[in-house]
């Protein structure tokens, strides 16, 4: 798919200037995020950067003191903002679905696998009882679970971690979603199993042309899976663009630092890892200026000003490559 063709695909997620806060503490500020049909978009960042809150807001699953505000949050053509009742209830499990990090805690331990898959079909009235049971076995087969008929009658504890994650994916796929949210789907899995699960998600995504929002802290997973990546730091997107561009020649000092901090199993061995000093400033103590400045090697006068996302403006770069750093032209040259 060319860039222009991709632009023409309908949006399954359209967030504009969305902010999320818990009891007055802001965790995500003014996030712009779009996921099109047939596209895999990644949100990456370290713990506490707000990436999971974005996923939960998209599902309409933020409860309690959470408040979502902004210009627009449309999920599968449904407005998710500004109503008291739950506008996404109809869509959840059908047009939007989600898989989580820990498949053991997301599955009901007292319910047979097949019944858990069939439940989604029954709730959304996609099938009657008998048909739902058959369809559940088909879905288990779709996610490449061997002997699906037998597995459907088993309980979650009888399955390995990788198999459980496949069951979660089967449940997510039951309603043939337009948007799949995957929150650290392979973090709890071994590398060889991770490879299989990612392959499965990609295969299903290509077959159904659904949009996928992948949330991860693993740059390797993102590089191998995603078309577009947004790097989050302390509740803000600091860099955004095509994965090849952003991870290939990162412009924001945080993206650069993150890549430099990963020890590699292949390629050239580094002398000393470039750790990022200090830690994330808590959101309630954030200053108006650049939030990464306290840990940034390039920080200086000017960084205390509020930073906007600006086009990276490199010759030949796609126009949607954006960086939240006023010195991004220097960072580009400083790289390597």
């Amino acid at each position, binding site marked *: 798919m060319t860039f222009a063709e991709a632009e023409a695909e309908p949006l399954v997620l359209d967030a504009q200037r969305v902010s999320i806060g818990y009891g007055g503490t802001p965790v995500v500020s003014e996030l712009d995020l779009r996921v099109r049909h047939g596209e895999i978009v990644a949100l990456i960042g370290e713990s506490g950067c707000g990436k999971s809150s974005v996923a939960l807001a998209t599902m309409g699953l933020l409860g309690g003191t959470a408040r979502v505000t902004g210009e627009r949050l449309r999920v599968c053509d449904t407005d998710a903002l500004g109503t008291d009742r739950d506008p996404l209830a109809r869509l959840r499990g059908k047009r939007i679905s989600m898989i989580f990090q820990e498949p053991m805690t997301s599955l009901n331990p007292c319910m047979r696998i097949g019944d858990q898959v069939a439940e989604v079909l029954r709730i959304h009235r996609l099938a009657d009882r008998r048909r739902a049971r058959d369809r559940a076995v088909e879905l288990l087969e779709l996610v490449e679970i061997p002997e699906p008929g037998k597995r459907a009658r088993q309980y979650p504890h009888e399955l390995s971690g990788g198999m459980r994650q496949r069951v979660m994916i089967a449940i997510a796929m039951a309603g043939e979603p337009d948007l799949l949210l995957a929150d650290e789907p392979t973090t709890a899995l071994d590398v060889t199993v991770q490879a299989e699960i990612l392959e499965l998600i990609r295969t299903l995504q290509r077959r159904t042309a659904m949009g996928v929002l992948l949330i991860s802290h693993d740059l390797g997973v993102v590089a191998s899976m995603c078309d577009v990546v947004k790097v989050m730091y302390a509740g803000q997107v600091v860099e955004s663009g095509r994965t090849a561009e952003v991870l290939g020649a990162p412009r924001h000092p945080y993206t650069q630092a993150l890549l430099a*901090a990963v*020890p590699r199993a292949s390629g050239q*061995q580094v002398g000393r890892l470039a750790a990022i000093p200090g*830690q994330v400033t808590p959101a309630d103590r954030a200053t108006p200026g650049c939030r990464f400045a306290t840990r940034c090697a390039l920080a200086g006068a000017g960084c205390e000003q509020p930073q906007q996302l600006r086009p990276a403006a490199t010759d030949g770069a796609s126009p949607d490559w954006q960086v939240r750093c006023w010195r991004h032209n220097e960072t580009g040259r400083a790289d390597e």
Partner: protein
Amino acid sequence: MSDVVLSFRGIGHDFPGRGRGGPPLRALRDVSLSLRRGETLSVVGESGCGKSTLARVAVRLYQPTHGTLEYHGEDLTRARGRALRPLRRGVQMVFQDPNGSLDPRMTVRRSVTEPLQAAGVARRDRGDRAAEVIAQVGLPVDALDSYPHEFSGGQRQRIAMARALAARPELLVLDEPTSALDVSVQAQILNLLRETQAVQSLAYLFISHNLGVVRYLSDRVAVMYLGGVVEVADSADLFASPQHPYTVALLSAVLEPEAGGAVRRRAALRGELPSAADTPPGCAFAARCWLATEQCRTVRPPLVETVPGRQVACHRPGEASLSDLPQPTGAGRPGEQDVRV
């Protein structure tokens, strides 16, 4: 005194099987490894391969059911009480989760001085030593009077390291010490581990499933599969030219954050670890191996030295390579039957 700090000789460890008369779960089988002063030996493998059990045997949290554990040439496999003291002081452990391994009701000072007390250090010297190690791990001295909850995950792992270092051990057993941390913090801890080792010729037994981290820290690497060691080699050799097909498969599954999203050809490993209670008679990896022959399924290959310093347990060592892997298989795609056994 010999250069070898700790050796495992034919270590096996069985856990009782399920129910009465159930087959025992063989967590470790015939593991022989030794650690020299100042060296880092990493143990890698997937969950359930026995690497954490090995770590616990090293500090004698478990008494192995087979084989001998030697500390400076002395057999401490069944030692108790006073006889175990040298090992208790000289071998210290850092766990994966610092929230679980630090007592939330103890000040950092108490946590850090407790091993000193156990090692018989005089009360008046303990405070100085605590201040010394807390500075060594990069924390301010006033951290000693705080409680674990006042620190971030990375700082807590530093405290756990300070506690392990307090009694001047010769060997640290590190069981996934960075896998609960963010990458930027992980890099800080990895650098700290390297620096600490450089100043006091400490040996590390490093347990991890993260191959990037292992490569960064290790002198030698042992790859485990289903309770047994399948390959041991110098780190550089292992990553450059793995000899065992399982090592090849493991390395090929690592996703690097390189540009373009190009995925390297991965070994088409289907299925997961067989149960440790019901292992096949031949090579434990045969059921998932694309090179397996009849011999592999019936005769267990011993761990033998193929070149000096390099041991492989495989009937066809060196035949698998990263550049020549079967394609990943998916539903209904050709080749599936070749690898699914």
